[in-house]
Structure formats: structure tokens, C-alpha cells
């Protein structure tokens, strides 16, 4: 019983760490414009819209986060083998991984922006200085919390994978969950605020991103401020729920029905999520209604 209680406590802590990781990951990728909507940032100068948005997407978020989390997990693992305190090891390893992220961010921004020089898109040195450090700070939070979570899975819950391998698994899963959930809010609601709320962006509006903030030109720091209000927390809840429910059902039900208990619990959880999804889908159709032409709406 005591081990189950400890397992539930560790599960809650791991879920909380994952929630923070998801929120920081999405905000970092929005500040760096690394998620899928980055194609619009890359496209804008070609359509004649010069901007001050950072653009560091070379690969997607999942492989990038897979790399950074794995570097941190691997270095932390090596430090721990030498006898270093685990907390100190994870902090130092995360700081080292963040320098890799910083180099990646700088070279990616310079490379991608320089490729647009024929469309007269300048490289802003002040944008590099101000935005890179902020993405690094958010990346540190995301990497540290993910590696700390992985360490809990190994040390307290006894998962058979070594720490660096768990880093690959959860780093890629973190990027996948964050980019899936947070990207629409950044892409549609932030980059295309001139478009109507409650409608998708017409394909003809591609590249016409919003470039001006309340005071002067918008920079990527404004994007972080905006998306931290919904896209970031939603990504955090998404990743936190994945980690928490995956651990919770295993810790609590693995010994039930010869191992099938955790699987049945998983099926029940999936069905509950499916029902909630169907409910909100129907709710949206009822409350928003079908699209009508503008003149019909005003008549």
C-alpha cells in the first residue's frame, strides 16, 4: 500500500512537471516562431510584408525538443554516475543543453532570414539580442522540468529505460503534444488577428501576417505574451494529462486482473475523452451554427 501511495505522489509530481514543461515549450516555440505556422513568417516577405518576427524553424518542434531533452538527460546521467547530486546534475545539464538551443536559435534565425534578403527582409540585430535570450529562458524551463520528470520515472517508479532513452521518448512526445495543441492558437489567433474571429484563415490571406503591435512594430516577445494566455497553458494541460494518466493507470491498476487492469483503465479513459470530444463538437455546432453570408447575417 505504501508503495502505491508513493507511486501516486510521484505520478502527481511528474504530471505537474509535465504541465509546466508543456506550457514553457509552447511559449518558447511561439517566441521563436518554430511551430508549423512558421511557414507564414517565412512567406510574408515574399508577399511584400517585412516583419520583425523571429523565425528559427529548421526542423519541427518534436525532433528539436527530442535533441535538447536528450542532451540534457544524457549529460545529467553522466554527472550522476560520477556521484553528483541528481538535482544539481539536472540543473547543470539543462543549462548546457540550453546553450545548444541558443546556438541553434541564432544560426537558424540568421540562416532563414538571410535567405529572404532578395525580398529585402533585414536581419535585425536587436531582435537576435532580445528574443534569443528569452527563448533560451523558456527552453531551460521546458528542458529542466522534462528531464526532472524522466528522472522521477527512473528513480522512483523504476521504469527500465535509462535516463537518456527516456529523454528521447518524452522529448519527442513533448514537442508533438506542444506543437499539436499550441500551434493553431499562435497561427490563427495571433498571426491573423485582422481576420474575423470564429472563422478559419482563407488560403488567399496566406503570408499577410499582422506585423504591428499596440505600440510600434510587433516582435516575437509580443507573441509569447499573447500565446502564454491560452496556447501555452493548453499545451501544458495536454502534456500533463498524457504523462499523469499514463502513469496513474499503470501505478494504480497494473496489479489488477493480472496486468489487464491498467489496460482496461486506459480504454475507459480513452472512451471518456472521446465522449467529451463529441460533446464539445456538438456544442460548437449548436452554438456557433452554420456559416452564413454576410448580407444574410445583417438582414
Amino acid at each position, binding site marked *: 500500500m505504501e508503495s502505491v501511495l508513493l507511486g501516486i505522489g510521484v505520478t502527481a509530481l511528474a504530471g505537474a512537471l509535465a504541465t509546466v514543461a508543456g506550457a514553457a515549450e509552447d511559449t518558447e516555440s511561439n517566441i521563436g516562431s518554430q511551430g508549423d505556422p512558421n511557414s507564414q513568417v517565412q512567406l510574408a516577405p515574399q508577399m511584400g510584408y517585412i516583419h520583425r518576427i523571429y523565425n528559427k524553424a529548421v526542423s519541427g518542434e518534436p525532433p528539436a525538443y527530442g535533441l535538447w531533452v536528450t542532451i540534457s538527460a544524457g549529460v545529467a546521467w553522466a554527472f550522476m554516475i560520477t556521484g553528483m547530486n541528481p538535482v544539481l546534475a539536472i540543473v547543470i545539464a539543462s543549462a548546457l543543453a540550453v546553450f545548444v538551443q541558443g546556438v541553434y536559435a541564432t544560426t537558424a534565425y540568421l540562416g532563414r532570414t538571410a535567405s529572404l534578403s532578395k525580398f529585402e527582409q533585414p536581419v535585425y540585430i536587436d531582435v537576435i539580442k532580445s528574443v534569443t535570450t528569452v527563448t533560451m529562458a523558456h527552453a531551460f524551463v521546458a528542458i529542466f522540468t522534462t528531464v526532472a520528470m524522466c528522472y522521477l520515472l527512473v528513480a522512483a517508479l523504476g521504469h527500465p529505460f535509462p535516463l537518456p532513452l527516456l529523454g528521447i521518448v518524452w522529448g519527442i512526445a513533448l514537442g508533438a503534444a506542444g506543437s499539436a495543441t499550441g500551434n493553431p492558437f499562435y497561427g*490563427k489567433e495571433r498571426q491573423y488577428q485582422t481576420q474575423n474571429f470564429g472563422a478559419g484563415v482563407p488560403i488567399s490571406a496566406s503570408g499577410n501576417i499582422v506585423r504591428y503591435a499596440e505600440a510600434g512594430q510587433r516582435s516575437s516577445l509580443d507573441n509569447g505574451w499573447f500565446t502564454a494566455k491560452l496556447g501555452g497553458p*493548453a499545451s501544458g*494541460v495536454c502534456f500533463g494529462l498524457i504523462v499523469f494518466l499514463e502513469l496513474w493507470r499503470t501505478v494504480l491498476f497494473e496489479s489488477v486482473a493480472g496486468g489487464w487492469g491498467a489496460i482496461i483503465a486506459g480504454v475507459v479513459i480513452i472512451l471518456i*475523452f472521446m465522449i467529451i470530444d463529441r460533446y464539445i463538437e456538438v456544442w460548437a455546432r449548436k452554438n456557433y451554427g452554420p456559416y452564413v453570408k454576410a448580407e444574410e447575417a445583417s438582414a
Partner: protein
Amino acid sequence: MTAIAAKPSASEGINPVASVIGIVIIIAAVAIAAVFANFALAALIGVIIGGLLIGFGVHFVPVGGAPAAMGQSPGIATGVAMLAAGAGLAGLFGGAWAAANPAFGIAIVIAAGAIGGGLLMAVTCLMVNIVYIFGMGIPAASGKVAKDPITGDSQAEYKSQGTEGHGLPFISYVGGVIGGMLGGAGGTLIYYELLQVYAAKLPELFSATAADVLPVAVSLAGIFAVGMFLMNAVLAAYNITGTIEGPHDPKFKRFPRAVIGCAVASAVAGLFAVLIVVV
């Protein structure tokens, strides 16, 4: 004929010559394993089945890429390979955990992997719809079918003008969960089969006890499973080319090509994975 006009016909159907070559490669890989590593023959077949499960599963995952992030097309706003890999690896995490328990047989291990992958997709798909509906005020609508094949909901009138649809209609949600489950099961099967081979062969290779080499066996099998997962997911993503809404999307019919391709790639990669313990 222009290249644009030639594209759709060239991208559908199975190329018979390439398929025969692929099947010959699979048979050759199995034959080499039968001669040089007979003990791992069943494991190699398991790896091939795992690979094609992943390739098939990726076709179920609704992915909209960058257009989905603007509400221009339905699906999840990320890349096919990346999302499928995320789901499959979460499944592998659960499957590996179950495999560490000696009391559990292969059925429980594979089921644990499948549910892990399905759970990630269930949570992610729900959060995607929550952001679309409550963050952007957009209901789910498919651009590929007039009615949702499961619920019968009509789609066209809920679609914004100038877009191909947005959000995740219910059929896409269900497809995502099925894709995650197939991916998780396939990745776990690869891991489980390789783990059996390594756990049996590494002790005599290193002249050490089984308990001492178990962490090495787990790590090796895990690395190969992750690698083969990414390999199969990327192969299937190339077959899909861009976006797919789920099982109702016309692109879904392309899956037989990916299944053959993934089986060939898994056979060759699996052969190397088992041969590393043959001295």
C-alpha cells in the same frame, strides 16, 4: 502532359516491379537470418509485423501541418511523422514498462503499448478541438467528405469560406486514436522481440550474468525500437505527402504502398539489429 497533371496518377496505386523487388528483399533478409541467426527468425518476423503496423497506423493520424495551424485545413497542426512518432513512443514507454514485469506475457505488453499510444492521441485530439472551439471560435468541419462517416453530421455548411475545413471532425478523432494504438502496438512489438533476442544472447557474448546485461539489452532494444519507429513513420509520411484527415481521406487508400515499404525497411533494419549479437 504537364508535371502537375501527371502527379496524381503517378502518386496512386502500387508499382508491381518495385513491390516484387521489395518482397524479394524481405525474403532475402529472412533467409539470411534463418542461416546466420536462426534463433532470431521469429523475432525478425515480429519486427517486420511491427514495422508495417506503424506504417499502417500513421495513415490514420489526422495531420494538417501548417494550414491546420491557420484553420485552413482539418487535422492536427504538426507533421505526420512527428505526431505519429510522439504517439508511438509514448506507447513504447508503456509497453517497455509492462515488459519489465516478468509476470506479463506478450499480449499484455503489446496491449499496454497500444493503449499508451492511443491515450496520447485521445488527449491531444481533445485539446486540439478545445483550442479550435474555445480559443478560436471555430467548429470542426471536414473538406473531404459531405458527411461524417461515424456521426452522419453534414460538414460543408460549417466550413469557413476559402478554407478546406478546420478542427477535428469525430471521424478524424477516432482515426487519430486508432493510429496511435497501431503505432504504439507496432513499436512495442519491435522492442519486445529484440529484447528477447538480446536478453538471451548478450550474457554469453559478454560472459556475464543475465541480470548484469539486462540494462544493456533494454537500452539496445529501446534504441532500435525508437530508430525503427522513426524510420517507418517517415516512410509512411512520404507516402501521405503533406496532410491527411484520417481514414475517410482519399489519401488513406495509399496505405498498401506504405505497408510494403515499411515491411521492406523493417526487414533490412531488423536483420542488422539481430545480427549484431552474432559473432
